[in-house]
């Protein structure tokens, strides 16, 4: 069930709404965050989520805007927790899906045959111009973790939706919406990043490309929001983190051949 939605930013023309979703009954599904940007009459949905939670997310989104006003659905990457609901969203809306060119011929395997509503994102990214002359920028975040991966920056609210970067996995009952204590939060982030993120080179390349942005908050697809005063610490941590193939000997150790 969606246990909450929350307006993260609001002015006369523009809203950013966070939807959190969590499985209270069992531990079989990783928790996921969805984000909706409403600008004038148009809406943009980031990482709509798994097929299993579609009806909950759609109902909650519908409280803010008719689904027919969603113009684009943006996917950071191709994983089931990000996008296995896409078949249903394409039926429920007139939106087009933006996804890395790497996954264009893979995502249809979720169960649809009409690719005319898919728009591929080239490796260097893309930007969507909003009515108020602001932008949603689709910025490269390749290999973090997916090989064809993007993060989304909303220039009006200065919100960066970072996909799996900055994701946290909480023990049951420990989840909070916004992080405040770095050391505590690190404990929930570190294991995930060390195993799923590609390597330190890819992390540093990404940090270099987003450090110049004026960021009010980072919203990852799992876990908690990182507020402005923690962002510098977060970037510094990523830049020195050894992960993925930096640890290849450990990961390939004990291979059963």
């Amino acid at each position: 069930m969606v246990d909450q939605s929350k307006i993260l930013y609001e002015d006369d023309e523009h809203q950013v709404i966070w939807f959190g979703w969590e499985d209270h009954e069992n531990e079989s599904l990783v928790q996921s965050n969805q984000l909706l940007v409403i600008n004038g009459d148009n809406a943009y949905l980031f990482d709509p989520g798994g097929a299993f939670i579609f009806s909950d997310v759609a109902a909650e989104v519908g409280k803010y805007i008719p689904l027919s006003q969603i113009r684009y659905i943006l996917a950071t990457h191709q994983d089931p927790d990000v996008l296995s609901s896409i078949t249903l969203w394409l039926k429920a809306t007139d939106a087009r899906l933006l996804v890395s060119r790497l996954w264009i011929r893979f995502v249809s395997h979720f169960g649809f045959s009409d690719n005319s509503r898919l728009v591929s994102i080239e490796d260097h990214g893309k930007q969507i111009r909003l009515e108020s002359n602001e932008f949603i920028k689709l910025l490269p975040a390749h290999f973090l973790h997916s090989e064809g991966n993007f993060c989304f920056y909303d220039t009006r609210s200065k919100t960066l939706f970072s996909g799996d970067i900055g994701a946290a996995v909480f023990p049951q009952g420990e989840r909070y919406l916004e992080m405040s204590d770095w050391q505590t939060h690190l404990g929930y982030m570190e294991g995930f990043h060390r195993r799923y993120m590609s390597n330190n080179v890819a992390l540093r390349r990404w940090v270099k490309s987003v450090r110049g942005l004026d960021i009010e908050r980072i919203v990852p697809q799992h876990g908690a929001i990182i507020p402005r005063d923690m962002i510098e610490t977060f970037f510094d941590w990523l830049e020195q983190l050894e992960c993925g193939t930096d640890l290849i000997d450990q990961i390939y150790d004990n291979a059963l051949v």
Partner: protein
Amino acid sequence: MEQQITRVEESKILYEDDEHQVVWFGWEEAEGADAFVQTNQCLVVDHDKGYLFDPGGTYVFHHVLENIMRVINPRQIRYLFATHQDPDVCSSIPYWMKTTDADLLISKLWLHFVSHFGLEDIDRVVAVPDGGGRITLDSGDYIAMIPAHFLHSEGNFSIYDSRSGILFSGDIGAAIFPAGERYMFVDDFDNHLKYMEGFHKRYMHSNQVCARWVELVRKLDIKMIVPQHGAIFPEDQVERFLSWFSELRCGGDYIEQIYRDERF
């Protein structure tokens, strides 16, 4: 859907003896359609039990099922193996869990992610540790999950059938053919490269990992490599492929070019 999916050579027995069979299933789109990447599925039958590798996408589920039913009753399938979490590999999983009594073997990294395809419970999902695992068969042989992490998925395995010597390599060795150009076995490696190279250079992680995987699988007696997309490498092409792959620069080796959208 019927107009979109063409069943080319529907199935082919890759190995057979009295106790053991390996059957390949393929399909592709009708000429001119461009929605789906083609996939290969593999079924091992050992005594009266079946083992299905990379069952495929939701859209092709009923084609694959129909092909399999010509070989074995789906209730005899003991394990479903997924090399990784992508939709073309296993978005059909909720259907297969209903159609069979099989357990799904997948990397521990994806345990809590695959349920998002729509599984009601994960009691039948087995999380495979990074080191891999082995299933012992009734014939005394085994099927092994060999680490292939970061190629491309972070939690990724190749699947080796010890009886036939067939290595199901997932995305490693995958080829993408232009319409009408597909063939089932590689016989001219140099010519085959043009269908393989672009994919591997962009999707595979880096040379360091390619070399690591090759080092690992060289310990196996490999009679055939079957990737999840494209053509099969027969025994006389295996060494050629492994040498090429272990030298390949790819993925993060080109990170500056990728961020600038340059071709390499």
